[in-house]
């Protein structure tokens, strides 16, 4: 292994940990499982580091791997449906400057997001949190841009409906 390869891993993969973690958490809905997915992803990429130079977009490749490993975990545990992780919700500490109304609205949004089908959740994560373009999301999730927009529209609409009643 050359020093140059090691440098590439450190420079291009290591800084993606937060994005990996957020996407994994959005899919698995579990902080612990998300941590495991990040670890698994890093190990996998480290083993394949010699081939990273052959990949056009390392970030898209990495996030696709995160999604696949997250889905594998869900499949292995037989947990396809939504299970709210109390520990994860507990990490969302209430802000001192937030009104009760806002806190309640945020709780409803989080619950609505967690209830979305996985693909809508992942797309909202990649778009609204990570700021990815439709083309990038399509590449990561192996969909067309039109499909991405349709899923995003459905996801956002469901979240909106959860808020309208507030």
């Amino acid at each position, binding site marked *: *292994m050359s*020093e140059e390869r*090691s440098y590439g*891993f*450190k420079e291009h993969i*290591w800084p993606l*940990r*937060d994005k*990996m*973690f*957020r996407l994994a*958490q959005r899919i698995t809905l579990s902080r612990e499982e998300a*941590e495991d997915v*990040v*670890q698994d992803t*890093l*190990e996998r990429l*480290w083993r394949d580091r010699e081939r990273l130079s052959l990949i056009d977009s390392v970030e898209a490749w990495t996030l696709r791997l995160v999604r696949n490993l997250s889905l594998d975990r869900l499949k292995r545990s037989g947990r396809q449906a939504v299970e709210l992780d109390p520990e994860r919700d507990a*990490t*969302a500490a209430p802000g001192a400057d*937030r009104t009760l*109304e*806002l806190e*309640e*609205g*945020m709780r*409803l*949004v*989080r619950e609505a*997001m967690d209830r979305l089908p996985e693909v809508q959740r992942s797309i909202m*994560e990649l*778009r*609204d*949190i990570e*700021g990815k*373009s439709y083309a990038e999301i399509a590449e990561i999730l192996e969909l067309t841009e039109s499909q991405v*927009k*349709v899923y*995003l*529209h459905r996801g*956002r*609409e469901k*979240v*909106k409906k959860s*808020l*309208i009643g*507030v």
Partner: protein
Amino acid sequence: MKDYKYIEELLESYFRAETSLQEEQILNAFFQDENQVPQHLKAYRALFAVEEEMRRERAPQTSESFGLQPARRVNLRPFYRAAASVAIVLCLGMAASMSMGVTGDDKAPTAEAVENPDAEFGEMEQALTPQSSAVVEKKDTLFLY
């Protein structure tokens, strides 16, 4: 009264997934500032507040050295300890042997004491040849140990 038509249109486009990233940033910035959000749009603040909160989520700190070691380092400390132990045992053995004294009978015969030195040398050479060959053949193994 302020006109929020632009924001309302952006919001509609946002829910139809027709906004650009730049337009979404405008919405984000607008809803982060509580004071400028009118009552009829306040409910949407929660959505952008959750998104902002999610953006701040970080992966737990793991060892910075993960996967970045070029090669696994071999810990040589046990080998040094073993070598030191062997050396101590050998020294103690030699010291004990010297302190017990070596009798004249145990001493190796000197050249003068040997009546026929050539024959004595031949016998010694014959006796040591197999051991010498074994050492040469197994030199790789010996080196590793």
